[in-house]
């Protein structure tokens, strides 16, 4: 437990020791700001009927952040340590592979949450100036946050896996981005299989990230996507652990 806490702190602070962390935070901040700019122009002084979060979600920058943040945050986790050789000093310290994987994942997810934090003040500011006295909708905001956290968790664990498989950060980022975008594009799968209504069509309908996120942004928390995302996270983390252990049977 002590080793886990030590590792977690080191991994989390590593984002702030180099420029990477600040660059990612600034980029996300810029995109969130742009989203709100576009959103407000689109509404153009009309009163909003839907929750603010839904309006924010409808701007496509949202997905850009969601898809890019994971690979960028996770690419260095294992790949950098392998490239510089610090992986050897790390793994010869009395820590278990599981502790290392969990600490790196948790730190990356924590940093991911930090990058999303500016969204909350943005929502509050926009609410302050657009709604005429209506109370702030905490429910949809919380469920949007949950959606962002859960989908992010899948992408971060996927990024961990990609980073654990290679010593090149570029390859790690490319692989996790490719799979992340691929997963996202499954959202459109249901449009291509509507003709036949077998199990495949039903499965395709369940895999729509866009639809899940729409629900979350509207304030609806469906357990099915929650279970899906948690399962995927656990699966990718398991594979990451196996990849880290992999050096033993190579």
């Amino acid at each position, binding site marked *: 437990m002590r*080793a886990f806490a*030590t590792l977690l702190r080191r991994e989390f602070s*590593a984002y702030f020791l*180099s420029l990477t962390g600040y660059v990612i935070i600034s980029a996300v901040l810029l995109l969130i700001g742009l989203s709100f700019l576009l959103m407000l122009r689109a509404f153009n002084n009309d009163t909003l009927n839907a929750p603010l979060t839904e309006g924010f979600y409808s701007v496509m920058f949202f997905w850009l952040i969601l898809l890019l943040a994971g690979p960028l945050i996770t690419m260095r986790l294992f790949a950098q340590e392998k490239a510089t*050789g610090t992986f*050897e*000093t790390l793994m010869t310290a*009395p820590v*278990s592979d599981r502790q290392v994987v969990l600490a790196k994942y948790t730190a990356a997810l924590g940093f991911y949450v930090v990058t999303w934090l500016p969204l909350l003040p943005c929502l509050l500011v926009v609410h302050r100036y657009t709604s005429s006295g209506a109370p702030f909708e905490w429910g949809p905001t919380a469920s949007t946050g949950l959606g962002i956290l859960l989908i992010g968790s899948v992408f971060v664990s996927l990024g961990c896996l990609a980073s654990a498989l290679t010593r090149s950060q570029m390859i790690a980022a490319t692989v996790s981005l490719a799979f992340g975008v691929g997963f996202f594009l499954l959202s459109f799968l249901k449009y291509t299989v509507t003709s036949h209504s077998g199990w495949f069509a039903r499965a395709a309908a369940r895999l729509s990230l866009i639809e899940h996120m729409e629900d979350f942004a509207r304030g609806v928390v469906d357990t099915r996507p929650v279970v899906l995302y948690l399962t995927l996270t656990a699966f990718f983390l398991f594979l990451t652990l196996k990849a880290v252990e992999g050096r033993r049977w190579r």
Partner: protein
Amino acid sequence: MNSGPMIEVENLTKRYGRHTAVNNVSFTVARGEIVGLLGPNGAGKSTIMRVLACFLPATEGTARVAGLDVFHAADAVRRRIGYMPENNPLYPDMRVREYLKFRARLKGLDVPRSRERVDVVTEQCGLADVAQRIIGTLSKGYRQRVGLADALVHEPDLIILDEPTIGLDPHQIRAVRQLIKDLARKHTVLISSHILPEIELTCQRVIILYQGRVLAADSTADLQSRLGRNGEVVAEVAAPADELRRCWEAMDTVEHAEVIPVKDGYCRCTLVPRAGVDLRPVVFQTVVDRGWSLRELSHSPATLEDIFVRVTRPDREEDLF
């Protein structure tokens, strides 16, 4: 503390795919020894060290550190080992003190203990001046000391250093060497190197590796007398060269003699004795008896370098055993 050997390696074999990096290696290291693993690049030194540090498992055979199996009791073994890998990898964006504290905590020391130990190793490794510097801005010599400090921070029984002086300038090498010698009072040390004087100066015992096998393992002194040709005796004598040659050839304790005339009527004689004979008194007596004058008489032991070159030449392997 139990008194068994610090390291026991039995029939250790490590294969990477089809390539056999370490082939059936066995050796033991007693507590408190400084032992050098010596061999050309690719001889399997780093692989053996990685197995001992529980980074890689062996393909066959066993390795024990302080009686604990490196595979089954990896965690306990890691607590007893301070390992500095080849090229001494560090986190360049951390500060020296911060890094050492992180490592101390990672190795299971609590906060007060880690603070105390970091202070001790910072002092011991001469890092007090740079404790607040960022590691990436340090010179290579200082980085090497940071690596050493990291290896020492949890007071391990066994310190494993893979090529600790590689890439350092002569001053830095001297400093690191002194540091290692100081360590030996309290710890068992295993060093690898392909630089021979390095091993010769710091280690009591050498294990010579070649192509993944142990070619020779003995104390430096024993290796010199067992494998070396006992060195040479050099004498500068004022006498005619022919007469000197005849004289040395007549002696049955001299295996080979070379006589080269130098200035002022002196001849420089390089004599190779038969095994186990010290030629110096004999030479002195001969010179005195004949009434010649002598201005130099010295003995140069075979260096580890001679031994190493002999041992690692593939065609000479069979001579040894």
